[in-house]
């Protein structure tokens, strides 16, 4: 039986790979992809907790479904932004999106 800690370690590793991707890559589509990886990492943790918890009863899974839905929404919006931005600026670098600068 794999202990809970190992699942959490996997989740952690995946999460920080995703995080590094978000911080390190300039391409907006790749950033969106890395965010999806981070969400996946969280989902692993949720399901693992749910499974090992005496009072879980499927609650973790329910949250996973919520995350799915929001991830889908986020991907749709993020990619739509990417397309709109490409159309507008012919570029896909995140750094070009600095209109909100103070």
């Amino acid at each position: 039986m794999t202990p809970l800690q190992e699942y959490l370690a996997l989740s952690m590793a995946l999460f920080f790979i995703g995080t590094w991707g978000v911080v390190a890559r300039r391409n907006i589509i790749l950033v969106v992809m890395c965010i999806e990886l981070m969400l996946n990492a969280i989902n692993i943790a949720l399901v693992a907790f749910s499974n090992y918890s005496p009072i879980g009863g499927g609650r973790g899974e329910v949250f996973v479904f919520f995350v799915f839905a929001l991830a889908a929404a986020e991907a749709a919006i993020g990619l739509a932004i990417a397309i709109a931005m490409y159309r507008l600026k012919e570029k896909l670098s995140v750094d070009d999106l600095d209109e909100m600068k103070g």
Partner: protein
Amino acid sequence: MMKTAVLLIPLLPLASFIITGLFGKRYFKEKSQYLSVAAVAVSWLLSIYLIIQVERGEELSWQVYSWIAAGKFKVDIGFLVDQLTAVMLLVVSTVGFMVHVYSIGYMKGDGGYYRFFAYLNLFMFSMFMLILGNNFLMLYVFWEAVGLCSYLLISFWYTKQSAANAGTKAFLVNRVGDFGFGLGIMLIFVTLGTLSYSGVFENAGRIGSGTITAICLLLFMGAMGKSAQFPLHVWLPDAMEGPTPVSSLIHAATMVNAGVYMVARSSPLFHQSHTAMFVVALVGTFTAIFAASIGLVQNDIKKVLAYSTVSQLGYMFAALGVGAWAAGMFHLVAHGFFKGLLFLCSGSVIHAVSGEQDMRKMGGLKNKIKITYWTFVIGALAISGFPGLAGFWSKDSVLAGAFNGGYWYFWLVGLIAAFMTAFYMFRLIFMTFHGKPRDVELYSHAHESPRSMTIPLIVLAIPSVLIGLVLGLPPEDGHIDRFLEPVFEAVKGEAHHFGALDVGLMALSAGIGLAGIFLAWVFYIKRPELPEKAGAHVGVLYKAALNKYWIDEIYFALFINPVRALGRGLWRWVDVGIIDGFVNGSARFFRGVGMVLRPAQSGKIQAYMFSMLLGLLALLLVYLALTI
């Protein structure tokens, strides 16, 4: 019946005020006087009825309704009719009625004709309520209300800067007095838990000696304001800016007596505090001579009378202060009649010379305006203490009271003031009516006033002559003493027997008065060059008196200007400078911090993300450090 009368006396003028005030401008116009005069006339008749009832021994104490009830603080609107009330009512309603009649002629053609009568009615209402009230709070309330009427009537000709100033000044100085009065009332309430006259006077003995002195002095502060006693006398001379009937009614015969009435009414309280009584007498006596000395040199006919009023009010307080309660009230009644008369006469003079008030421009008017002249002389004789006339008896009873009470110093000062009074009154008469006309232009246009003005003069001249005989004989046990005895029973000193010494005193005061008249005759008829010489001789004193001892200037320098400067300073420095400076400064501080931190908001999402990552790392390390 008595209740109805008591209700109607104030309510008729009130109703007339409301109707005239609301509809006068549009509907009544030049006919505004009918309703007003009729209302006051009925009140006058009812007052006479009341005094007859009181004379028969009827009294009335009547709670009409509960006015303020907050916790233990309960005050009713209620009426109290006793001898003191009746006497005051009679003076007020008689002079008031005469002044109303007089105003018909005096104010004819004025743009604010209806307004004038409306205000007069409001004043009559307030004054009646002041007298009729049965508790201290009502006294205070209508005390302020008469002050309001005084304000409105002084600044009646509001387009004149001086009139507007005088009105504001009168109200403010009175407010200073009322400050004390109000605190006195609060102290009474806190000490005794009630404000009704009966409740307070019954328990007056229970009050501690320090507290009662405080109460009396605070109340007297109010009286000083209303009755224009030094140092709060400054408003009364300025109040002469108002129309002359107002000066006569409010600033001579009625409202200014409210202070005297209040002290007389509170006699059970004052009686308990020797200190307070002495202060009352001291202030009264000082004011009497102080104001008389200013009156000696004034050139404005109304100003002379105004200072004379201040001085005579001082007499009344002196009388009350030395314990001669009935004498004080006697002088109040007599003074009410003859000073009202004098003011109305001066109004008639001013009317005759088309508004000129400077006596230096008059002279020789006695042939032109005979009725005015003779009534004026009667009034002047009365106030100067000419034997037999009202002022003689009343003033003598005041002086005798002081002398017999052991206050010979007050008596002496009073005697000197009486001399001055006689002098300045006849200075006024000689300058105005005798000699050669100084301004021919004015003289040639001078004319006698209409009948509506002269009749009140004649009517008022009658009590000025007779009231002393009717009320004051025999001295110290006259009708008025006996009539007022129930009111002052509790506070009466030991009985005093009228003897040879008193006759001597009477002769002395009569002689002093005649001496004053004679000196005035010497100065202004016999040898008209003397006044200037004398003035030059006592240059500083003359200048000081002419400038009213610079009291106004001192107040400006000591109070008014500093207060304004303080207000300006607080506003500019504390409000705008410190508080707003702090508020705006903190706003600027945060804006500055924002400016410093602004570059961090680069708009680069990945930079934000990285800083979040660093933050997360820091938090994790802290957690690790704490747990391990």
